[in-house]
């Protein structure tokens, strides 16, 4: 009887610990996530410009690898933002980087991986990393 209680207690403790772990789990790094779609910067912008609803259905929350040329970079204390040229002077593909990356340079062709959050004037991806 005592044994069963002890086992139950242990199981309960393990369950509680797993629960606590799950609850406090930080965001997973995108670099270890599986890529859903690989696409060119201009193709991605066109997909949202032509039909935002269907592009949302396809790309929202998905892990995307986007290839393009770095058009502009903006850094604050908290965030680095990369603009990929998408063949349109007003709109681009915007990546918020997971952490600042000093290797990225303007004019360079890169592939960035991130999670697609949707379209405002630009297509915005967050938690970006260089592939």
């Amino acid at each position, binding site marked *: 009887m005592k044994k069963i209680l002890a086992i139950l207690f242990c199981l309960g403790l393990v369950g509680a610990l797993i629960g606590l772990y*799950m*609850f*406090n*789990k*930080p*965001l*997973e790094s995108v670099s270890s996530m599986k890529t859903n779609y690989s696409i060119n910067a201009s193709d991605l912008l066109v997909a949202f410009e032509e039909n935002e609803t269907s592009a*949302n259905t396809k790309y*929202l*929350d998905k892990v995307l690898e986007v290839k393009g040329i770095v058009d502009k970079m*903006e850094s*604050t204390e*908290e*965030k680095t*933002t990369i603009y990929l040229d998408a063949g349109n*002077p007003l709109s681009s593909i*915007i990546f*918020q980087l997971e952490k600042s990356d000093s290797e990225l340079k303007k004019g360079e062709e890169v592939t960035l991986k991130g*999670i697609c*959050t*949707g*379209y*405002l*004037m*630009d297509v*915005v991806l*967050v*938690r970006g990393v260089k592939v």
Partner: protein
Amino acid sequence: MKKIVATLTFLALAIVTLQAQKYFSKTGEISFHSSTPIEDIEAVSHSASTVFDVESGKIQWAVLIKSFEFEKALMQEHFNENYMESSKYPKGVFKGSIKNYESIDLTKDGKYTAEVNGTLEIHGKSNLIETTAIFKVENGQVSATSDFKIAVADYGIEIPSVVRDNIAKEVEVKIKTNYELLEKS
């Protein structure tokens, strides 16, 4: 004749400059904070878009709900899936105007208090917002900050009773951004 041409050129330039009085940013920061004795919840987006038209005093903000980042993965999931239904309502949009825009001169260094009112649409529901914003011009660089409170219930966001005590009824929203002058191409 030369004088006329010069005057006309000057006028044309002046008009172009006047029309170009629009400021924008695509990296506006919006954060919100919910505080209860049980739990503090905080999230931030660094990719809000905003345009401020100095000539008319009109100001707009838009943010993608999915661009809000939380410290805990599970919180972010619940926020998107259960509360904000961000696949159905992907954006939060504020459209408003600045009442005293004539007293704000963004070409001169200084600090200006703006009275802002307009409509905030989140989760498919719109409500009026009235707040103040501070515009700061330092060495020609324009920045703006504002904060206000919104009631979760006003936007049709249902919080299940199990976690009702964990989430504040009023959420504090803070916004800040650096504005760039929109150049005519």
